[in-house]
């Protein structure tokens, strides 16, 4: 193994005159390690291996927060992988600006990504200075409330149809020894839940005013105060969750220990893996049943600039494989997310996914905060909301004041 790189270099010099074999090993790093996620990645790997290349899996567990620094160190440290997952949005901006990432415009033009990728905002966030740097693989929307039918049955109340009914049902759930709302301890979950509440309660315009225009006045205003009021409810309802990982929280819903969870559509993969059926065992409410709008962030693959020509070619192959219809269907079915192209047939999709596709088709979409705010501001938000959800003595008013401060200083 130690002489591996030397052997590779040797192989290149030997192989160059022939330049026939395209096959190359490509290391792909990502943080998809939960059950549903791993199954979805396997589809990508299968598709890529079928092209004659080899997918070398570089999974790093512990969510993006653990994995991203490692990925960035490797790219900046001069030991880049073949491809790596990032949430698209602003996470890789600087790597691109430093010329460390590969320009995919050629592949994108050849395969006409501009026309097939829907919604167009996905490709926009891959585009910097008119050049395309990433291949989006899925659309993830945060705006879902997952409910355990069993839990409500046990509590003797009807399964709620929207957020307000859910809040109203909370006391009954509590009486039955069920945690009404599962919120995992990881900071991004609390922050994400708040964003979801904001779209649902304050609406799209206010949402954009806050995150896109960074209007601190709106952020500190009465509309957002209502959102904080709802977050206060959510906080009260989440007491007793006592788990860290999002999928453990999802698992509480699956097992009926919790009434519901605000989580992105990736939670769907966990329900599927547990053999649960949408509509029967669980219910999903897009936009919390209040406001049928979903955000369209998602995952994308970035390709670091490599010196090895074979590998560069393989990168192109991988990029087009990721976008290919067959891969899109197979991957997204397992992952529980939506495909990035409108022209694929998702007949196999379940109820919830279909709801999502409908909303997508109607164009009721918004950008995700990820795409509008820097990682720095996102982190500050996470700190704020994880504190807010864990600390009952923090008033919604105080939290709103700090929130407005973060928005004011955001870049």
């Amino acid at each position, binding site marked *: 193994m130690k002489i591996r790189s030397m052997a590779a270099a040797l192989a290149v010099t030997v192989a160059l005159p022939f330049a026939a074999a395209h096959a190359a090993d490509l290391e792909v790093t990502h943080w998809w390690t939960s059950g549903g996620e791993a199954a979805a990645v396997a589809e990508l790997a299968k598709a890529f291996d079928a092209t004659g290349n080899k997918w070398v899996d570089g999974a790093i567990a512990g969510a993006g927060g653990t994995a991203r620094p490692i990925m960035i160190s490797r790219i900046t440290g001069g030991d880049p992988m073949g491809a790596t997952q990032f949430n698209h949005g602003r996470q890789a901006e600087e790597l691109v600006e430093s010329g460390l990432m590969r320009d995919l415009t050629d592949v994108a033009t050849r395969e006409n990504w501009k026309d097939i990728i829907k919604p167009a905002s996905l490709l926009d966030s891959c585009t910097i200075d008119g050049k395309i740097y990433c291949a989006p693989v899925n659309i993830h929307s945060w705006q879902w409330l997952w409910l355990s039918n069993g839990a409500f049955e046990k509590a003797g109340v009807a399964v709620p149809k929207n957020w307000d009914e859910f809040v109203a049902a909370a006391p009954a759930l509590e009486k039955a020894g069920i945690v009404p709302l599962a919120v995992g301890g990881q900071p991004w979950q609390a922050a994400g839940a708040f964003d979801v509440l904001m779209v649902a309660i304050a609406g799209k315009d206010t949402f954009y005013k806050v995150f896109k225009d960074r209007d601190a006045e709106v952020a500190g205003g009465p509309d957002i105060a209502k959102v904080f009021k709802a977050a206060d409810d959510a906080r009260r309802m989440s007491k007793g969750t006592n788990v860290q990982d999002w999928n453990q929280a999802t698992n509480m819903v699956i097992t009926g220990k919790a009434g519901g969870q605000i989580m992105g559509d990736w939670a769907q993969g966990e329900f599927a893996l547990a053999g649960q059926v949408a509509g029967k065992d669980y219910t999903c409410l897009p936009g919390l049943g209040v406001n049928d709008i979903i955000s369209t962030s998602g995952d994308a693959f970035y390709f670091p600039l490599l010196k090895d020509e074979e590998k560069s070619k393989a990168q192109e192959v991988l990029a087009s494989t990721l976008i290919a219809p067959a891969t899109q269907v197979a991957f997204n079915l397992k992952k529980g997310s939506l495909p990035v192209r409108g022209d694929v047939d998702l007949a196999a999709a379940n109820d919830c996914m279909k709801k999502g596709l409908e909303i997508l088709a109607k164009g009721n979409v918004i950008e995700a905060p990820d795409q509008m705010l820097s990682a720095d501001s996102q982190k500050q938000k996470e700190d704020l909301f*994880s*504190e807010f959800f864990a600390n009952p003595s923090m008033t919604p008013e105080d939290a709103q004041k700090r929130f407005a401060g973060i928005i004011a200083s955001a870049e």
Partner: protein
Amino acid sequence: MTGQAHTGRPSRLLRNLSSKIASIPMMLTAVVIFLGGTIWTVVYSFTNSRLLPRAKFVGLDQYERLWDAPRWIVSIQNLAIYGFFTLVFSLVVGFLLAALMDQKIRFENTFRTIFLYPFALSFIVTGLVWQWILNPEFGVQSVVRALGWTSFTFDPLYNADIVIYGVLIAGLWQGTGLVMCLLLAGLRGIDEDIWKAARVDGIPMWKTYLFIVIPMMRPVFITTLVIIASGIVKVYDLVVAQTSGGPGIASEVPAKYVYDYMFQAQNLGQGFAASTMMLVTVAIIIIPWAYLEFGGRKRG
């Protein structure tokens, strides 16, 4: 800083040449990595570097923001609490165990192995195990409740007010064994005659320890202190494994703030500012001591 005096000799650079050559790795590490890395960090803490270091200076902005951040304040408070109690308890408990072990007991090897083995385990492992033992659903709390005391509450990891003490329990479990070992070695180095003299003089045992033995063990205590203190400042893995800083931000520590802001928030400048503050604190405590301990002394 003077060792043996050298003035007036020919070709000073070449004297002791092998020693200098052999010390090149140390000098490089000290200068390039520790000093260079530190200076680099301090310089870039005055920039608005985001994902990648960029020399765009913004003055004290990062520091103003740092000291405005509630999470940083909580981190500092936690470090102070954790540090204080770790120092006190690991020294007191470590010394107590060492003193007991020094009573010519039977099974000394067994006891010592038991006290020391946690040190072989990483903080990650330590954090995981204690997270589990302290989990209210099936850990200590549930066991005590199952025994009939149903109102018993012991859930330090889920109570923001006391979570840092939950981390402390785990940290002490991992580290006191080494402290005991160091202090035991120190006790063994005390001249037997001291004990005889104290006994003849009729001084009670605890007084002998407190007023005679402990002062004699100053060097051991200093070495121990360095080891404990350097561990305290760096505490990170334990918190990540045990609580991830939660609930909320109640068990955050400075090293985690640094890491999170450098890599998750992609705000290197903020991370560097935080690490500079940590360094300043450390330097204020360490430099005078290091100077006295290593710089001012010479060999006779």
